[in-house]
Structure formats: structure tokens, C-alpha cells
């Protein structure tokens, strides 16, 4: 599928959101890697029956999967690492470099009824959540019918929506309330919204020889 907006010349930006640095990088992967990820995620969702989180398709078994296109995943996680390093530098926080991947998955919304959308996943429904045990989180917008369907961040009643530009990535603080801003099914039936999430955590050093 041709990408909607492949002429975006932006690189990255940072912004202060409720006292925390939010990082947004654009044009993260090549079209080949994007298509590779889309195909791999589609295959995982079709072949693994453990593939739901409510109305959203979720790659619950991604960590066990024998990859068909290893190269695009190497490029994806290399890209993630590059942006984490830049985030550490921009925020003058070297502890970011010590973070390790705690979890990762892809979520895709293709189809549901309008009633389900309104009652379960519309932005006001109450899907805000946080992860207090995690230090930083990555959200990569692999497919999105419009950048207006990004990520809602909430803190003490204040709300901010980060745009979900296709092929862009944000680094945010998962211990702050957040929720996906999901498109209605009339859009996703023709153009799904798919994100890849990677969460990072600080682990104590483990002595492997003991």
C-alpha cells in the first residue's frame, strides 16, 4: 500500500508536556522496512489465535515468533536505539542509556461496529492508563489514516494529544496517563491504524556467571 505522506521532511523535535520531555521523530524507516513490518505483523495476527486486546488486534506472541523478515526488525530496533541515545543526550540524562526493553507488541485497529467504537474505544470512553513500573515508552505509528489519531496524554486533568504521523515515533513517559486516539471504523476498514509499542525499564545488573 502506498504511504499517505511520504514527503515529510521533518527530522525530530522535543516539547515540554506537563513538565516532561516528549520526543517526536519523523521519517523513521524506509518504505521497504515499513512494508516488511506490516506484512510480518499481519501474518502474526492471522496465524496466532492469541491476538486480541478487546477490540484491537494485538501481537501477544511477537516475542516468540520466528521472524520471516528479520532485517526490517533489526532496522526497527536499531532505529529505536538511535532515538533513545538522542533522547538521553537531549535531556542530559545518561541513565536512559541503561534502560532495557521490558516489552513490545503491535496493535492494529481494522474493524469494529460503530456501536462498539462509541461504547468502548472512543477517546472519551476512559481507556487512559499508565505503567508505573516502566521508565520510558516508544510508540511508533506504522500505519495511520490521519495524524490526528495520535496519543492522548493526561496529567491532573490536563490533556494533550500528540499527533500520530505515519512513520513517526514518540518517546513518552508511560507512568503518565495515556491512551490511543483511535479512528472510527469507517476509516480503518480501508486504512488500519497500526502502532508498535516498546517499553523500557531499568534493570539491576545481573551477573550471568552465577
Amino acid at each position: 500500500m502506498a504511504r499517505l505522506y511520504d514527503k515529510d521532511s521533518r527530522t525530530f523535535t522535543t516539547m515540554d508536556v506537563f513538565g516532561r520531555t516528549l520526543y517526536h521523530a519523523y521519517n523513521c524507516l524506509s518504505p521497504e522496512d515499513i512494508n516488511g513490518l506490516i506484512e510480518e505483523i499481519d501474518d502474526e495476527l492471522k496465524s496466532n489465535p492469541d491476538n486480541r486486546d478487546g477490540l484491537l488486534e494485538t501481537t501477544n506472541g511477537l516475542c516468540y515468533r520466528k521472524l520471516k523478515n528479520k532485517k526490517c526488525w533489526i532496522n526497527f530496533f536499531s532505529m529505536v536505539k538511535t532515538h533513545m541515545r538522542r533522547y538521553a543526550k537531549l535531556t542530559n540524562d545518561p541513565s536512559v542509556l541503561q534502560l532495557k526493553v521490558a516489552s513490545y507488541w503491535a496493535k492494529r485497529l481494522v474493524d469494529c461496529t460503530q456501536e462498539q467504537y462509541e461504547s468502548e474505544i472512543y477517546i472519551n470512553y476512559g481507556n487512559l492508563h499508565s505503567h508505573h513500573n516502566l521508565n520510558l515508552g516508544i510508540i511508533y505509528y506504522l500505519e495511520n489514516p490521519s495524524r490526528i489519531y495520535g496519543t492522548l496524554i493526561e496529567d491532573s486533568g490536563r490533556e494533550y494529544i500528540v499527533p500520530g504521523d505515519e512513520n513517526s515515533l514518540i518517546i513518552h513517559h508511560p507512568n503518565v496517563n495515556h491512551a490511543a486516539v483511535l479512528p472510527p471504523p469507517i476509516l480503518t476498514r480501508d486504512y488500519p491504524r497500526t502502532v508498535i509499542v516498546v517499553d523500557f525499564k531499568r534493570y539491576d545488573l545481573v551477573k550471568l556467571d552465577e
Partner: protein
Amino acid sequence: MNDIDKVKLRNIITKVLNRSSPEDYKNFDDLMEKQHFNVPPGGKPTFLSDDDLEFIEKNPSVKDKFIDLCIAFGKYQDHIISKNYNDTTEYLLDLLKISNHVREVPKNIEYIKKGIENNLSGTIEEILIILDLSHRPYDA
């Protein structure tokens, strides 16, 4: 990295290993500074050719990992040389895979090979180990 670059990298590493014991250096620049190598201020080391230096400068990932690559290559060169690499990317990844753990986990090669050959092979978990993003020990 193509075949020519692979050979070039191997030759450069061998040159460094022949001149020094790189365990004490933080990075490539540190190596250059501490070893002196008859380098005048603002000059360049004589044991590496202009081509060598240009190659390193043009490959930031190699430069960033250079000391680790040297350590890994020095410690595990028998394994690296004996392994028949069909894919040059695999060669570099294998080198990085080892080097990522050299500083923190100076294990013997059998231990590292165990992780490479177990069921993590071909999974994202393996990629995370290669990129030093995994918190899991090899045989968890």
C-alpha cells in the same frame, strides 16, 4: 558492509591488536590519544593508513564500537575466523553480538554460542541481545 569492507575492518582490527592491548581504552579516540603512535599534534597515527582512517570515519557505527570490536576480535578470533560467513551482515552482527557482552560479561565463547544457537535464534529477543537492549541472560 560489503566483502571489501569486511576484509578492511578485519585488517584494521588486526593492526590495532598487533600494536596494543585495547582493553583499557574507552573508545577509538581514546586509543589514538593514549597510544600516541608517534602522532604529532593534529596528526594521525602511522600504523593506520589514510584508507583505514577514512574507512573508520565513514562508518560511525564501527567507530563507536571499535574498541569492543577489537576486544571481541582478539578474544574470539579463532571462532570468528573459523566460522564460514555467507552473509557479511551476519559477520558484523556476530562480531557485535559478542562485543556487546565483552565488557560486562567476559565469558568464554561456548557460553555465548549457546545463546546464539538456542531457541532465541530468529526472534526479536535475539535482535535485542545483538543490539544490547535485552535484559534477559542468554539461557534464561
